[in-house]
Protein backbone atom coordinates (compact mmCIF):
# COMPACT_ATOMS: atom_id res chain seq x y z
CA UNK A 1 0.00 0.00 0.00
CA UNK A 2 1.85 3.13 1.21
CA UNK A 3 5.27 1.78 0.27
CA UNK A 4 4.56 1.74 -3.46
CA UNK A 5 5.40 5.16 -4.90
CA UNK A 6 2.46 6.74 -6.68
CA UNK A 7 3.01 7.16 -10.39
CA UNK A 8 3.24 10.92 -10.25
CA UNK A 9 5.90 10.95 -7.54
CA UNK A 10 9.58 11.09 -8.39
CA UNK A 11 12.05 8.64 -6.95
CA UNK A 12 15.69 9.01 -5.92
CA UNK A 13 18.56 6.63 -6.68
CA UNK A 14 17.94 5.24 -3.16
CA UNK A 15 14.18 4.60 -3.28
CA UNK A 16 14.68 0.83 -3.60
CA UNK A 17 16.89 0.87 -0.52
CA UNK A 18 14.23 2.68 1.52
CA UNK A 19 11.50 0.20 0.72
CA UNK A 20 13.87 -2.74 1.33
CA UNK A 21 14.65 -1.28 4.77
CA UNK A 22 10.94 -1.04 5.54
CA UNK A 23 10.78 2.74 5.18
CA UNK A 24 7.29 4.22 5.22
CA UNK A 25 7.13 6.20 2.00
CA UNK A 26 5.23 9.48 1.83
CA UNK A 27 4.96 12.21 -0.79
CA UNK A 28 7.32 15.09 -0.05
CA UNK A 29 8.32 17.90 -2.40
CA UNK A 30 7.09 15.87 -5.37
CA UNK A 31 9.10 12.80 -4.34
CA UNK A 32 8.28 9.55 -2.61
CA UNK A 33 10.47 9.70 0.50
CA UNK A 34 10.78 7.69 3.73
CA UNK A 35 9.19 9.45 6.69
CA UNK A 36 10.57 6.78 9.01
CA UNK A 37 12.02 3.29 9.13
CA UNK A 38 10.70 0.54 11.43
CA UNK A 39 12.71 1.80 14.44
CA UNK A 40 10.53 4.95 14.52
CA UNK A 41 11.07 8.68 14.58
CA UNK A 42 12.09 9.02 18.23
CA UNK A 43 14.72 6.26 18.03
CA UNK A 44 16.05 7.68 14.74
CA UNK A 45 16.16 11.16 16.24
CA UNK A 46 18.07 10.03 19.32
CA UNK A 47 20.44 7.90 17.26
CA UNK A 48 21.40 10.97 15.24
CA UNK A 49 22.04 13.02 18.39
CA UNK A 50 24.19 10.22 19.88
CA UNK A 51 25.83 8.50 16.89
CA UNK A 52 25.33 9.13 13.16
CA UNK A 53 22.12 9.26 11.14
CA UNK A 54 22.07 8.74 7.37
CA UNK A 55 19.46 10.71 5.43
CA UNK A 56 18.54 10.56 1.75
CA UNK A 57 18.09 14.20 0.76
CA UNK A 58 18.34 13.55 -2.98
CA UNK A 59 14.97 15.27 -3.44
CA UNK A 60 16.70 18.59 -2.85
CA UNK A 61 18.18 20.65 -5.66
CA UNK A 62 21.96 20.50 -5.97
CA UNK A 63 23.35 22.33 -8.98
CA UNK A 64 26.43 24.02 -10.38
CA UNK A 65 26.48 27.47 -11.92
CA UNK A 66 29.43 27.90 -14.26
CA UNK A 67 30.69 30.87 -16.23
CA UNK A 68 30.53 30.23 -19.95
CA UNK A 69 33.89 31.95 -20.41
CA UNK A 70 36.51 32.07 -17.69
CA UNK A 71 39.49 34.45 -17.73
CA UNK A 72 41.89 32.21 -15.86
CA UNK A 73 42.12 34.79 -13.07
CA UNK A 74 40.71 32.85 -10.12
CA UNK A 75 39.42 35.82 -8.16
CA UNK A 76 38.09 37.71 -11.15
CA UNK A 77 36.21 34.60 -12.28
CA UNK A 78 34.69 34.17 -8.82
CA UNK A 79 33.61 37.82 -8.79
CA UNK A 80 32.03 37.35 -12.21
CA UNK A 81 29.99 34.27 -11.29
CA UNK A 82 29.03 35.76 -7.91
CA UNK A 83 27.76 38.83 -9.75
CA UNK A 84 25.29 36.59 -11.61
CA UNK A 85 23.49 35.41 -8.44
CA UNK A 86 23.98 38.32 -6.06
CA UNK A 87 21.07 40.30 -7.55
CA UNK A 88 18.75 37.44 -6.47
CA UNK A 89 19.94 36.94 -2.89
CA UNK A 90 20.85 38.99 0.18
CA UNK A 91 24.14 37.26 1.00
CA UNK A 92 27.72 38.25 0.26
CA UNK A 93 28.58 35.76 -2.46
CA UNK A 94 31.50 37.77 -3.85
CA UNK A 95 33.13 37.62 -0.42
CA UNK A 96 33.11 33.81 -0.20
CA UNK A 97 36.54 32.34 0.43
CA UNK A 98 37.63 29.32 -1.61
CA UNK A 99 35.81 26.26 -0.24
CA UNK A 100 33.36 28.32 1.82
CA UNK A 101 29.59 27.66 1.94
CA UNK A 102 27.06 30.35 2.78
CA UNK A 103 23.42 30.02 3.84
CA UNK A 104 21.45 32.67 1.97
CA UNK A 105 17.96 33.57 0.80
CA UNK A 106 16.32 34.08 -2.58
CA UNK A 107 14.06 37.11 -2.19
CA UNK A 108 11.17 38.64 -4.08
CA UNK A 109 10.82 42.36 -4.72
CA UNK A 110 8.83 42.75 -1.51
CA UNK A 111 11.69 41.25 0.51
CA UNK A 112 9.83 37.97 1.04
CA UNK A 113 11.70 34.69 1.05
CA UNK A 114 11.30 32.59 -2.13
CA UNK A 115 13.67 29.94 -0.78
CA UNK A 116 16.57 29.40 1.56
CA UNK A 117 19.62 27.85 -0.02
CA UNK A 118 23.32 27.14 0.20
CA UNK A 119 25.82 28.78 -2.17
CA UNK A 120 29.44 27.70 -2.11
CA UNK A 121 32.68 28.65 -3.83
CA UNK A 122 34.94 25.80 -4.96
CA UNK A 123 38.28 25.41 -3.23
CA UNK A 124 39.95 24.09 -6.37
CA UNK A 125 41.37 26.97 -8.49
CA UNK A 126 40.66 24.86 -11.57
CA UNK A 127 36.93 25.18 -10.78
CA UNK A 128 37.07 28.97 -10.32
CA UNK A 129 34.16 30.77 -11.91
CA UNK A 130 31.62 28.25 -10.66
CA UNK A 131 29.33 27.97 -7.65
CA UNK A 132 27.79 24.95 -5.95
CA UNK A 133 24.17 25.79 -5.18
CA UNK A 134 21.69 23.63 -3.24
CA UNK A 135 18.02 24.64 -3.09
CA UNK A 136 14.91 23.08 -1.54
CA UNK A 137 12.93 20.29 -3.22
CA UNK A 138 9.54 22.01 -3.26
CA UNK A 139 10.87 25.20 -4.84
CA UNK A 140 13.60 23.90 -7.07
CA UNK A 141 11.91 24.27 -10.46
CA UNK A 142 11.17 27.95 -9.80
CA UNK A 143 14.58 28.54 -8.23
CA UNK A 144 16.48 26.95 -11.08
CA UNK A 145 14.45 28.91 -13.62
CA UNK A 146 15.19 32.11 -11.74
CA UNK A 147 18.92 31.47 -11.51
CA UNK A 148 19.14 30.34 -15.16
CA UNK A 149 17.33 33.51 -16.26
CA UNK A 150 19.75 35.65 -14.25
CA UNK A 151 22.67 33.76 -15.78
CA UNK A 152 21.55 34.61 -19.32
CA UNK A 153 24.50 34.19 -21.69
CA UNK A 154 27.08 34.68 -18.94
CA UNK A 155 26.79 31.36 -17.18
CA UNK A 156 25.11 27.95 -17.35
CA UNK A 157 23.21 26.25 -14.58
CA UNK A 158 23.82 22.51 -14.52
CA UNK A 159 21.34 20.59 -12.40
CA UNK A 160 22.64 17.67 -10.36
CA UNK A 161 19.33 16.66 -8.84
CA UNK A 162 19.46 13.28 -10.57
CA UNK A 163 22.42 12.53 -8.27
CA UNK A 164 22.35 11.03 -4.81
CA UNK A 165 22.54 13.59 -2.01
CA UNK A 166 23.20 11.96 1.34
CA UNK A 167 23.37 13.68 4.71
CA UNK A 168 25.41 12.00 7.41
CA UNK A 169 24.73 13.77 10.70
CA UNK A 170 25.74 13.28 14.29
CA UNK A 171 28.73 13.25 16.65
CA UNK A 172 30.20 10.12 15.03
CA UNK A 173 29.74 11.34 11.45
CA UNK A 174 33.32 12.60 11.12
CA UNK A 175 34.85 9.32 12.28
CA UNK A 176 32.63 7.43 9.85
CA UNK A 177 33.46 9.57 6.83
CA UNK A 178 37.18 9.58 7.66
CA UNK A 179 37.32 5.92 6.66
CA UNK A 180 35.80 6.65 3.25
CA UNK A 181 36.97 10.16 2.32
CA UNK A 182 39.81 11.11 4.69
CA UNK A 183 40.01 14.66 3.26
CA UNK A 184 36.38 15.29 4.19
CA UNK A 185 37.04 14.76 7.87
CA UNK A 186 39.52 17.66 7.71
CA UNK A 187 36.91 20.14 6.41
CA UNK A 188 35.82 23.00 8.67
CA UNK A 189 32.13 23.71 9.33
CA UNK A 190 30.47 25.30 6.30
CA UNK A 191 33.26 24.42 3.89
CA UNK A 192 33.28 21.84 1.13
CA UNK A 193 35.44 20.09 -1.39
CA UNK A 194 35.35 17.61 -4.28
CA UNK A 195 37.27 14.44 -3.47
CA UNK A 196 38.07 11.29 -5.40
CA UNK A 197 36.91 8.14 -3.63
CA UNK A 198 35.99 4.52 -4.21
CA UNK A 199 32.55 5.91 -5.08
CA UNK A 200 33.73 8.31 -7.77
CA UNK A 201 34.18 12.01 -7.18
CA UNK A 202 32.19 13.06 -4.12
CA UNK A 203 31.25 16.66 -3.41
CA UNK A 204 31.33 16.75 0.37
CA UNK A 205 30.12 19.69 2.46
CA UNK A 206 30.54 19.90 6.22
CA UNK A 207 27.02 21.13 6.78
CA UNK A 208 23.55 19.93 7.58
CA UNK A 209 20.22 20.81 9.11
CA UNK A 210 20.14 18.90 12.37
CA UNK A 211 22.31 21.08 14.63
CA UNK A 212 24.91 18.31 14.75
CA UNK A 213 28.30 18.04 13.12
CA UNK A 214 27.91 16.30 9.80
CA UNK A 215 28.31 16.11 6.07
CA UNK A 216 26.20 16.41 2.94
CA UNK A 217 27.57 14.27 0.15
CA UNK A 218 26.75 14.56 -3.55
CA UNK A 219 27.40 11.31 -5.39
CA UNK A 220 26.83 10.45 -9.04
CA UNK A 221 23.56 8.54 -9.62
CA UNK A 222 25.18 5.17 -10.43
CA UNK A 223 27.27 5.18 -7.26
CA UNK A 224 24.67 6.36 -4.76
CA UNK A 225 23.47 2.92 -3.69
CA UNK A 226 27.02 1.64 -3.15
CA UNK A 227 27.90 4.67 -1.02
CA UNK A 228 24.64 4.35 0.97
CA UNK A 229 25.37 0.67 1.62
CA UNK A 230 28.96 1.39 2.60
CA UNK A 231 27.88 4.05 5.10
CA UNK A 232 25.18 1.81 6.60
CA UNK A 233 27.69 -1.05 6.93
CA UNK A 234 29.30 1.04 9.68
CA UNK A 235 27.56 0.09 12.92
CA UNK A 236 27.63 3.71 14.07
CA UNK A 237 25.27 4.63 11.20
CA UNK A 238 21.52 4.05 10.93
CA UNK A 239 19.05 5.31 8.35
CA UNK A 240 16.88 8.23 9.39
CA UNK A 241 13.72 9.45 7.68
CA UNK A 242 12.09 12.82 7.11
CA UNK A 243 10.16 12.64 10.40
CA UNK A 244 13.29 12.77 12.51
CA UNK A 245 14.90 15.21 10.09
CA UNK A 246 12.03 17.56 10.93
CA UNK A 247 12.21 17.05 14.71
CA UNK A 248 16.01 17.47 14.64
CA UNK A 249 15.90 20.73 12.69
CA UNK A 250 13.08 21.99 14.92
CA UNK A 251 15.16 21.37 18.06
CA UNK A 252 18.05 23.12 16.30
CA UNK A 253 15.75 26.14 15.82
CA UNK A 254 16.23 26.08 12.05
CA UNK A 255 13.35 27.35 9.91
CA UNK A 256 11.72 25.08 7.33
CA UNK A 257 10.78 26.62 4.01
CA UNK A 258 7.03 26.51 3.31
CA UNK A 259 6.32 26.53 7.04
CA UNK A 260 8.47 29.03 8.95
CA UNK A 261 9.50 30.84 5.80
CA UNK A 262 7.38 31.85 2.83
CA UNK A 263 6.97 34.62 0.30
CA UNK A 264 5.50 37.00 2.89
CA UNK A 265 8.23 36.55 5.50
CA UNK A 266 11.35 38.71 5.39
CA UNK A 267 14.79 37.57 6.60
CA UNK A 268 14.61 40.15 9.39
CA UNK A 269 11.26 38.86 10.64
CA UNK A 270 12.54 35.31 10.49
CA UNK A 271 15.54 36.13 12.66
CA UNK A 272 17.85 35.48 9.72
CA UNK A 273 19.44 38.93 9.77
CA UNK A 274 22.84 37.19 9.76
CA UNK A 275 22.06 36.08 6.20
CA UNK A 276 21.82 39.71 5.07
CA UNK A 277 25.46 40.71 4.76
CA UNK A 278 26.58 44.14 5.92
CA UNK A 279 27.92 45.06 2.49
CA UNK A 280 24.63 44.14 0.80
CA UNK A 281 22.54 45.90 3.43
CA UNK A 282 24.58 49.10 3.15
CA UNK A 283 24.41 48.97 -0.63
CA UNK A 284 20.68 48.02 -0.47
CA UNK A 285 21.27 46.18 -3.76
CA UNK A 286 19.05 43.12 -3.39
CA UNK A 287 15.31 42.46 -3.91
CA UNK A 288 13.15 44.02 -1.21
CA UNK A 289 16.11 45.89 0.29
CA UNK A 290 14.01 48.91 1.22
CA UNK A 291 11.75 46.84 3.49
CA UNK A 292 14.60 44.90 5.04
CA UNK A 293 16.66 48.03 5.75
CA UNK A 294 13.58 49.58 7.41
CA UNK A 295 13.00 46.45 9.48
CA UNK A 296 16.65 46.27 10.40
CA UNK A 297 16.29 49.79 11.82
CA UNK A 298 13.51 48.54 14.08
CA UNK A 299 10.24 48.70 12.12
CA UNK A 300 9.17 45.11 12.67
CA UNK A 301 5.59 43.82 12.80
CA UNK A 302 6.42 40.24 13.78
CA UNK A 303 9.42 38.15 14.65
CA UNK A 304 10.18 34.44 14.76
CA UNK A 305 10.52 32.96 18.23
CA UNK A 306 10.97 29.58 19.86
CA UNK A 307 8.36 28.51 22.40
CA UNK A 308 8.51 25.63 24.86
CA UNK A 309 5.14 24.42 26.16
CA UNK A 310 4.14 22.83 29.44
CA UNK A 311 2.87 19.27 29.62
CA UNK A 312 3.00 16.95 26.62
CA UNK A 313 0.38 18.31 24.20
CA UNK A 314 2.09 19.02 20.86
CA UNK A 315 1.36 22.48 19.46
CA UNK A 316 1.49 22.31 15.69
CA UNK A 317 1.58 24.56 12.65
CA UNK A 318 -1.37 26.94 12.49
CA UNK A 319 -2.14 27.08 16.21
CA UNK A 320 -3.03 30.65 17.22
CA UNK A 321 -0.94 32.32 19.94
CA UNK A 322 -2.76 34.65 22.33
CA UNK A 323 -1.84 36.95 25.18
CA UNK A 324 -3.25 36.87 28.74
CA UNK A 325 -6.36 38.72 27.58
CA UNK A 326 -7.01 36.23 24.78
CA UNK A 327 -6.05 38.57 21.92
CA UNK A 328 -4.17 36.95 19.07
CA UNK A 329 -0.49 37.90 19.06
CA UNK A 330 0.77 35.45 16.48
CA UNK A 331 0.77 31.93 15.13
CA UNK A 332 2.78 28.74 15.31
CA UNK A 333 4.50 27.96 12.00
CA UNK A 334 5.97 24.59 12.94
CA UNK A 335 5.87 22.60 16.11
CA UNK A 336 5.87 19.19 17.62
CA UNK A 337 7.22 17.01 20.37
CA UNK A 338 10.93 17.31 21.08
CA UNK A 339 12.43 13.85 21.65
CA UNK A 340 15.52 15.36 23.31
CA UNK A 341 13.60 17.57 25.74
CA UNK A 342 10.53 15.30 26.03
CA UNK A 343 8.44 18.46 25.74
CA UNK A 344 6.38 20.22 23.08
CA UNK A 345 8.33 22.90 21.21
CA UNK A 346 7.36 25.23 18.40
CA UNK A 347 8.54 27.98 16.13
CA UNK A 348 6.14 30.81 15.50
CA UNK A 349 5.78 34.47 14.75
CA UNK A 350 4.62 36.99 17.36
CA UNK A 351 4.45 40.75 17.63
CA UNK A 352 7.85 42.06 18.79
CA UNK A 353 6.59 43.11 22.23
CA UNK A 354 5.88 39.43 22.99
CA UNK A 355 9.19 38.12 21.69
CA UNK A 356 11.52 38.63 24.65
CA UNK A 357 12.98 35.56 26.29
CA UNK A 358 10.78 34.44 29.16
CA UNK A 359 7.59 36.01 27.77
CA UNK A 360 4.52 33.91 28.53
CA UNK A 361 2.36 32.94 25.56
CA UNK A 362 -0.72 30.80 25.25
CA UNK A 363 -1.46 28.57 22.28
CA UNK A 364 -4.96 27.38 21.44
CA UNK A 365 -5.17 23.70 20.51
CA UNK A 366 -8.61 22.17 19.82
CA UNK A 367 -10.23 25.21 21.50
CA UNK A 368 -8.22 24.73 24.69
CA UNK A 369 -5.34 26.87 25.97
CA UNK A 370 -1.87 25.49 26.59
CA UNK A 371 0.82 27.58 28.29
CA UNK A 372 4.26 28.25 26.88
CA UNK A 373 7.33 30.41 27.36
CA UNK A 374 9.46 32.14 24.74
CA UNK A 375 12.91 30.56 24.92
CA UNK A 376 16.25 31.28 23.31
CA UNK A 377 16.95 29.37 20.10
CA UNK A 378 18.19 26.75 19.49
CA UNK A 379 16.15 24.55 21.83
CA UNK A 380 19.00 22.03 21.82
CA UNK A 381 22.55 23.46 21.53
CA UNK A 382 24.27 23.22 18.15
CA UNK A 383 27.35 21.02 18.08
CA UNK A 384 28.89 22.06 14.78
CA UNK A 385 32.54 21.29 14.22
CA UNK A 386 34.68 24.36 14.89
CA UNK A 387 38.33 24.23 14.03
CA UNK A 388 40.66 25.55 16.75
CA UNK A 389 42.02 28.13 14.30
CA UNK A 390 40.21 29.83 11.46
CA UNK A 391 41.61 28.90 8.08
CA UNK A 392 42.83 31.66 5.81
Amino acid at each position, binding site marked *: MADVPADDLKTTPLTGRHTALGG*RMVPFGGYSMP*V*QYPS*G*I*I*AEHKWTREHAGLFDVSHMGPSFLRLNRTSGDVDADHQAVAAVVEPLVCGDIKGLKPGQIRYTLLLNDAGGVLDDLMIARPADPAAAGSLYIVVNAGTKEADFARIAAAAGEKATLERADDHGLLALQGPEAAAVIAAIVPEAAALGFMTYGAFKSAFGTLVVARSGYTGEDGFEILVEPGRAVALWDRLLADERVRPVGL*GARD*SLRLEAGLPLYGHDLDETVSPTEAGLGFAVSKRRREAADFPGAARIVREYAGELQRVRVGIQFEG*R*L*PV*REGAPLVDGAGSEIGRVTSG*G*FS*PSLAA*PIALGFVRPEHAQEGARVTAIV*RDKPTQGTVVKLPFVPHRYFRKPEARP
Partner: protein
Amino acid sequence: MTTKFTSDHEYIRVEGAVGTVGITAHAQEQLGDIVFVELPAVGKKVKKGDEVAVVESVKAASEIYAPVSGTVLSVNEALTDDPGLINQDPAGTGWMFTIAIDTPAELEALMDETAYAKLTA
Protein backbone atom coordinates in the same frame (compact mmCIF):
# COMPACT_ATOMS: atom_id res chain seq x y z
CA MET B 1 -15.71 -11.96 25.28
CA THR B 2 -15.46 -10.78 21.68
CA THR B 3 -13.44 -8.08 20.00
CA LYS B 4 -14.82 -5.99 17.16
CA PHE B 5 -13.09 -3.49 14.89
CA THR B 6 -14.00 -0.25 13.11
CA SER B 7 -12.77 0.85 9.69
CA ASP B 8 -11.05 3.73 11.55
CA HIS B 9 -8.86 1.14 13.31
CA GLU B 10 -10.38 1.26 16.79
CA TYR B 11 -11.05 -2.01 18.61
CA ILE B 12 -13.73 -2.66 21.22
CA ARG B 13 -13.35 -5.69 23.44
CA VAL B 14 -16.80 -6.56 24.78
CA GLU B 15 -17.46 -8.20 28.13
CA GLY B 16 -21.18 -8.18 28.94
CA ALA B 17 -22.45 -4.60 28.59
CA VAL B 18 -18.98 -2.98 28.82
CA GLY B 19 -16.50 -2.40 26.03
CA THR B 20 -12.78 -1.60 26.31
CA VAL B 21 -11.66 0.67 23.48
CA GLY B 22 -8.24 1.29 21.99
CA ILE B 23 -6.49 1.44 18.65
CA THR B 24 -5.28 -1.60 16.78
CA ALA B 25 -1.69 -2.78 16.39
CA HIS B 26 -1.97 -1.79 12.73
CA ALA B 27 -3.07 1.73 13.69
CA GLN B 28 -0.27 2.31 16.18
CA GLU B 29 2.23 1.09 13.63
CA GLN B 30 0.89 3.49 11.03
CA LEU B 31 0.90 6.41 13.48
CA GLY B 32 4.41 5.78 14.78
CA ASP B 33 5.68 6.99 18.14
CA ILE B 34 2.75 8.28 20.17
CA VAL B 35 3.63 11.26 22.37
CA PHE B 36 0.29 12.48 23.71
CA VAL B 37 -3.20 11.15 24.32
CA GLU B 38 -6.28 13.24 25.08
CA LEU B 39 -8.86 11.08 26.86
CA PRO B 40 -12.58 11.72 27.33
CA ALA B 41 -14.13 12.75 30.66
CA VAL B 42 -15.51 9.86 32.70
CA GLY B 43 -19.30 9.99 32.53
CA LYS B 44 -19.34 11.55 29.04
CA LYS B 45 -22.17 10.29 26.86
CA VAL B 46 -21.12 9.60 23.29
CA LYS B 47 -22.82 8.53 20.08
CA LYS B 48 -21.33 6.00 17.73
CA GLY B 49 -18.88 7.86 15.47
CA ASP B 50 -18.38 10.84 17.81
CA GLU B 51 -14.85 12.11 18.21
CA VAL B 52 -14.03 10.93 21.70
CA ALA B 53 -10.25 11.06 22.08
CA VAL B 54 -7.12 12.25 20.28
CA VAL B 55 -3.85 10.43 19.79
CA GLU B 56 -0.84 12.48 18.76
CA SER B 57 2.22 10.94 17.19
CA VAL B 58 5.43 12.84 16.53
CA LYS B 59 4.06 13.72 13.10
CA ALA B 60 0.32 14.32 13.50
CA ALA B 61 -2.86 14.32 15.56
CA SER B 62 -5.46 11.59 14.93
CA GLU B 63 -9.03 11.55 16.21
CA ILE B 64 -10.41 8.45 17.88
CA TYR B 65 -14.11 7.78 17.30
CA ALA B 66 -16.56 6.01 19.56
CA PRO B 67 -17.16 2.55 18.06
CA VAL B 68 -20.61 2.41 19.70
CA SER B 69 -22.94 4.76 21.61
CA GLY B 70 -22.69 4.75 25.38
CA THR B 71 -21.21 6.32 28.48
CA VAL B 72 -17.50 6.55 29.28
CA LEU B 73 -16.93 4.50 32.44
CA SER B 74 -13.18 4.84 32.94
CA VAL B 75 -10.05 6.04 31.15
CA ASN B 76 -6.50 4.68 31.16
CA GLU B 77 -4.74 7.34 33.26
CA ALA B 78 -1.38 5.61 32.70
CA LEU B 79 -1.39 6.96 29.12
CA THR B 80 -1.09 10.54 30.36
CA ASP B 81 2.48 9.97 31.54
CA ASP B 82 3.33 7.10 29.23
CA PRO B 83 1.49 7.41 25.90
CA GLY B 84 4.04 5.00 24.40
CA LEU B 85 2.06 2.16 26.02
CA ILE B 86 -0.18 2.35 22.97
CA ASN B 87 2.81 1.50 20.76
CA GLN B 88 4.09 -1.21 23.07
CA ASP B 89 0.85 -3.01 23.89
CA PRO B 90 -2.15 -1.50 22.09
CA ALA B 91 -4.56 -4.32 22.96
CA GLY B 92 -3.37 -4.63 26.57
CA THR B 93 -1.86 -1.88 28.75
CA GLY B 94 -2.38 0.60 25.90
CA TRP B 95 -6.20 0.51 26.18
CA MET B 96 -7.78 3.98 26.13
CA PHE B 97 -11.22 3.92 27.79
CA THR B 98 -14.13 1.71 28.77
CA ILE B 99 -17.69 2.41 27.72
CA ALA B 100 -21.11 1.22 28.95
CA ILE B 101 -22.72 0.09 25.71
CA ASP B 102 -26.19 1.59 25.05
CA THR B 103 -27.22 -0.53 22.09
CA PRO B 104 -25.51 -3.92 21.73
CA ALA B 105 -27.00 -4.17 18.23
CA GLU B 106 -24.50 -1.49 17.09
CA LEU B 107 -21.73 -4.04 17.56
CA GLU B 108 -23.23 -6.11 14.73
CA ALA B 109 -22.16 -3.50 12.19
CA LEU B 110 -18.50 -3.70 13.24
CA MET B 111 -15.92 -6.06 11.78
CA ASP B 112 -14.76 -9.25 13.40
CA GLU B 113 -11.09 -10.15 13.52
CA THR B 114 -11.09 -11.96 10.18
CA ALA B 115 -12.76 -9.06 8.36
CA TYR B 116 -10.42 -6.55 9.97
CA ALA B 117 -7.35 -8.61 9.07
CA LYS B 118 -8.59 -8.58 5.48
CA LEU B 119 -8.99 -4.78 5.56
CA THR B 120 -5.42 -4.23 6.71
CA ALA B 121 -3.78 -6.96 4.66
